[in-house]
């Protein structure tokens, strides 16, 4: 039989089925893919400016601890992390903001006024007012935060590892 130039009933059916199949496949498939991959596409900002209050709160010459917590949200789970910052205002007006995490194994150091040093309770690491290691196992000086002062208020830049 000579082939008619027109679309046969069967051919039309096949094309229509393929077309509708593709549409239905996309309507069902695309949301399914989005559903699976969407958590991977969401990124939490890794940087945040944390306000530490008026600079006047921090006495000159004495390292002063400021503590705060930040909540990290992963899906349905919230993790609260606590941070400690030693703000040190020097006589000359210079400022340093040290993390209170020991650079050895991350215990919390505390400022000991009598010793004039930060001392770590875990393995007796010592750091001077500049954060330099003076004694014990810590391999490097205390970490410093980047900071800014706006209208007399101090903020530090928190960077997530």
């Amino acid at each position: 039989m000579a082939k008619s130039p027109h679309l046969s009933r069967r051919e039309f059916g096949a094309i229509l089925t393929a077309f509708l199949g593709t549409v239905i496949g996309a309507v069902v498939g695309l949301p399914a893919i989005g559903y699976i991959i969407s958590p991977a596409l969401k990124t939490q900002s890794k940087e945040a400016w944390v306000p530490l209050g008026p600079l006047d709160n921090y006495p000159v010459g004495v390292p002063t601890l400021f503590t705060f917590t930040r909540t990290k949200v992963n899906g349905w789970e919230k993790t609260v992390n606590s941070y400690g910052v030693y703000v040190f205002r020097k006589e000359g007006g210079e400022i340093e903001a040290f993390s209170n995490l020991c650079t050895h194994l991350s215990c919390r150091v505390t400022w000991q006024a009598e010793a004039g040093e930060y001392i770590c309770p875990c393995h007796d690491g010592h750091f001077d007012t500049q954060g330099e290691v003076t004694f014990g196992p810590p391999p490097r000086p205390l970490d410093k935060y980047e900071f800014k002062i706006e209208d007399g208020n101090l903020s530090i830049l928190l960077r997530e590892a």
Partner: protein
Amino acid sequence: MSTAQKVYTWLDERLGLTGIYNVVLDRKVPKVNWWFTLGSASLFLFVMQGVTGIFLTVYYVPSPDHAYDSIQYIMNGVSFGWLIRGIHHWGATLMVVVVSIHMLRTFYLAAYKYPREVTWLTGVVLFLATLSMGFTGYLLPWNQRAYWATTVGTEIPGTAPLIGPLVTRVLRGGADLSAVTLARFFSVHIWFLPAIIAATIGIHIYLVIRLGISSIPDKDD
């Protein structure tokens, strides 16, 4: 012969695809009406619930600490989570309705009679399992409604004489609703019941194919 046809012929020769098609789909049926589509509709809904349910388990956590929050996350945090949960939620209700009407139609049209008694009996298993899916799924959001509905629901068999209190304790996995209850309801909802339903659908549909569809009874029947 086109390539597609060649591939099909090659496969058909080895797998007997045409045979399956003829037996399963190209069956002779008496003159029937739309009520006869409800079994297929039930099957479709079961598959749909299965697929959306599998997707929900990607984020749902069956623990009292996280169940509620994980569902909030599905609804607000995940793309199309509201859609997948919505389909599963409304599909559950629809499936109970459709399966029930399917049962009523086979009852009113006397389709359960010889030789289809076993089809009916497997249907009873399917009906009860479908209702149990609804009961176990209802607890999973672990919100107030779920918690108290299940408290009441597990209390009911407790009124039966002798074994009642034991049944309540077995359902709850202890004296009270707890993490144990949530975990076992989840397990029954996603493993035990779907396995039972899938296997029973297999027998049910084997029988439908083997015995053919009954015709609508007339005055002489």
